[in-house]
């Protein structure tokens, strides 16, 4: 997919390869790369999943693989959580409810 110049994208780079990780990190972390994600505007048209240059919000120019076009926010208020509703009932009952005795 060709993405036009000026499109807001998220790029990803690998800062450190598995062998280059700090010796102080646990093994599970040693065995994976240190990755980095930055958002910005494409300086030239680019292919999705191919390297490209972007300009960031502070005006820096950085290069990385285009991973996402117009990246949205996906976090939310979560699924309904039964256990939390039970806590709410407990709180309201203990505070305002009739004593069992």
């Amino acid at each position, binding site marked *: 997919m060709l993405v036009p110049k000026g499109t807001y994208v998220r790029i990803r*780079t690998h800062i450190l390869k598995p062998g280059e990780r700090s010796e102080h990190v646990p093994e599970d972390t040693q065995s994976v790369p240190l990755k980095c994600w930055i958002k910005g505007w494409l300086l030239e048209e680019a292919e999705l999943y191919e390297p490209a240059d972007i300009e960031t919000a502070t005006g820096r120019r950085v290069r990385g693989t285009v991973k996402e076009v117009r990246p949205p926010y996906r976090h939310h208020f979560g699924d309904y959580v039964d256990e939390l509703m039970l806590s709410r009932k407990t709180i309201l009952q203990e505070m305002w409810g009739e004593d069992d005795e």
Partner: protein
Amino acid sequence: MRTMSKQTSYSIADLTRRKNQIIKASVGLDYDTYEHEGIGFDYENMMASTGYSFEDVQKIQQDSKVGSTPLIELHNITAYARKFSARGYGARIFLKDEAVNLSGSFKARRAAMSIHKAKQLGYEGVIAATSGNYGAAVAALAAKHGLKCIVVQECFDSNNLAQPEILEKARACEAFGAEVIQLSVGPELFYTFLDLLDKTGYFNASLYSPYGVMGIETLGYEIADTLKKETGKYPEVVLATNAGGGNLTGTARGLQKAGALDTKVYGASVNLEGLHMASDSDFNRKSFTTGHTGFGIPFAVNPDRSDVPRSAARPLRYMDGYYTVNQGSVFFITEALSVLEGLERGPAGNTSLAAAFRLARTMREDEIIVVQETEYTGAGKHHQPQLSFAKRNGIDILHGIPEQEIPGKNIVLPKSAAHISIKEVDLDRVRRSYLKRFKDTELTDADLGYLAEELNLSHERLERLLEEVRT
């Protein structure tokens, strides 16, 4: 315009070699001038060297719509705690509603000072390494004062799964126009941060600089001042959620400045024992990204492990006690704060509220306990998305007694508020860990004087602890 770099990779060895020079250029302070001969440094001189008086700090914060937050008496939470207290017991619980600060947390107090200094020294922009509220605070204050801002976050695990709370902080930073750099798990974030400081020439808005800590002194001062006016006395206890130690340090210093010398200052952290903070696989098995023991204990043991040579956050100097609570109790009290007080806040900032609820039961009903912060809540960082994220990651959500909680395996919501419990951290154990690195060092009288101040101990008790460490 500055030279732009297209490189995001760097050499750790090269950055380590140039670390002191990069930090010095980015903080506007020469830390060498505060060093003593031997192991110590002149803490008070460093704090005074910022050029800001306490009144300056108040003025700068007022101008930035920061500080002077409401101190709210939690009548219903207090009444709730009294249901489980002996007759005559159940202290009055007050809450400092720091969520109403610009950007939604007390971190704006810290950011206001860093931004003011950066602007005064003529920096073009600021950088902060934080996955928490501090990023939003720096971004908001930078926006207000026309500085560029970069926030570096530890955000994703190797499966590209992010903590929802951190995604929300990224969104907030971006809302204020900042550039957010998101990394996968690992303490090498520090080198990315150094590399950015080096390449941009921006100011290091460190949480641990004197600016970052003096900004909180107003918080402690306001608590003492407001309570004295409203109740005629200073609080018996102030509880601070503790991570890097700056919150507790600044609050305690502010209380002292106001004259509340008898007020006890306690720290509270969420217990995450057993989870490794640099582990890729543990990263998304925790439900708190700050205010937990994974920061609280190491930063107390070694405050200078931060991003400046000498941290201004030195919690052991000021801590009268330190308690841990489980994750489930913090979620429970966060829910109680919503449905009993109409205050939707937290959850991380409510760590000390959970501890206060339990402590209040041991204090007389005419005594006062102050929880010194709240934080805004929202998508991702509200307790419901935190719990649903935990469930999706295979963490069991149970109802029971908090002692059953195993961080990374389950979250235990107390089946009654009566079960909210606290565990006291043995401060002497923390102090011994602090002292371990000096066990083979020949200590001079000046060194011993420094350590006594650092650990808030008499010389006799210091000698005793040193003896225990050496044998």
